[in-house]
């Protein structure tokens, strides 16, 4: 206990193997590292995508297994939505640049899907005999299905810019 002094004055670990950001000059909090897409505001997104993954997947599984022939297209669309949510959720949890790109693609597809289905249901309500997650732009889900991809795209694009002004991707209060 006496021979090893446990005090560590510098919080930085000494030997970073691929250390490119061990400079003292740049505040770490102001640097949204591209890998950390699931923290800070990203964690809120992760939480919402988690809920929607469970909601959309379980909904479509119940519908497909019990009354598939009633509205095959609507139920398959719900399943597609659920899978997209699941992929984005996984990417947010995993982090990293390739995951961020994958999430960007999926968020774009999601936005495309919700805009297409939403417009179709508004223009011609008989297009889908049963509701999907994306019907009426997701009005049955307090419009979150259309808000989520937009927010996701903004967040994921921001996370790509290193040392951008005032986008604290990491916890300041830690």
């Amino acid at each position, binding site marked *: 206990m006496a021979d090893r002094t446990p005090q560590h004055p510098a919080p930085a670990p000494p030997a970073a193997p691929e250390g490119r950001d061990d400079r003292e000059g740049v505040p770490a909090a102001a640097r949204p590292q591209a890998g950390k897409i699931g923290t*800070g*505001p990203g*964690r*809120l997104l992760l939480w919402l995508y988690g809920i929607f993954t469970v909601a959309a997947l379980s909904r479509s599984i*119940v519908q497909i297994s019990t009354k598939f022939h009633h509205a095959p297209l609507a139920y398959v669309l719900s399943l597609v939505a659920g899978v997209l949510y699941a992929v984005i959720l996984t990417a947010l949890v995993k982090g990293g640049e390739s995951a961020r790109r994958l999430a960007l693609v999926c968020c774009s597809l999601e936005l495309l899907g919700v805009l297409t289905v939403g417009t179709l249901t508004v223009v011609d309500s008989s297009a889908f005999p049963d509701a999907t997650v994306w019907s009426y732009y997701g009005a049955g*889900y*307090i419009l979150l299905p259309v808000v989520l991809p937009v927010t996701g795209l903004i967040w994921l694009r921001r996370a790509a810019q290193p040392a951008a002004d005032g986008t604290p991707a990491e916890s300041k209060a*830690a």
Partner: protein
Amino acid sequence: MLTAVIVTVSVTALLLSAWCGYAAYRDSPTKDWHFGGMAVVTLVALLQLVISVVQLARGERPEQGLAVFLAYLIGAACTIPAAAFMSLAERTRWGSAIVAAGGIILAVLELRLDQIWGNGHG
């Protein structure tokens, strides 16, 4: 009976949401008191689970299907605990925002539960 519980869960969930939303607005992470609030809402949601199971055991059935009703019931009981764990992992204002979002989600789940049970039709 079930209606009263549904209203109670919804109101407490929305109160929790407003409280944690205010914390997020003030740039504050969730504190011990917030977790106390989450515990209260979770307890009410668990009470709802018990009451619903008792009603089902007595032979009452939800209008829109038993499986869907049970899925929403379990989802409602899990929402706030899940939000609590997420806010433990995120010790910033965004952790508070997560709980605030969870409260709104729970209120929506309660609305759906009410529809599935069919209270409006007697």
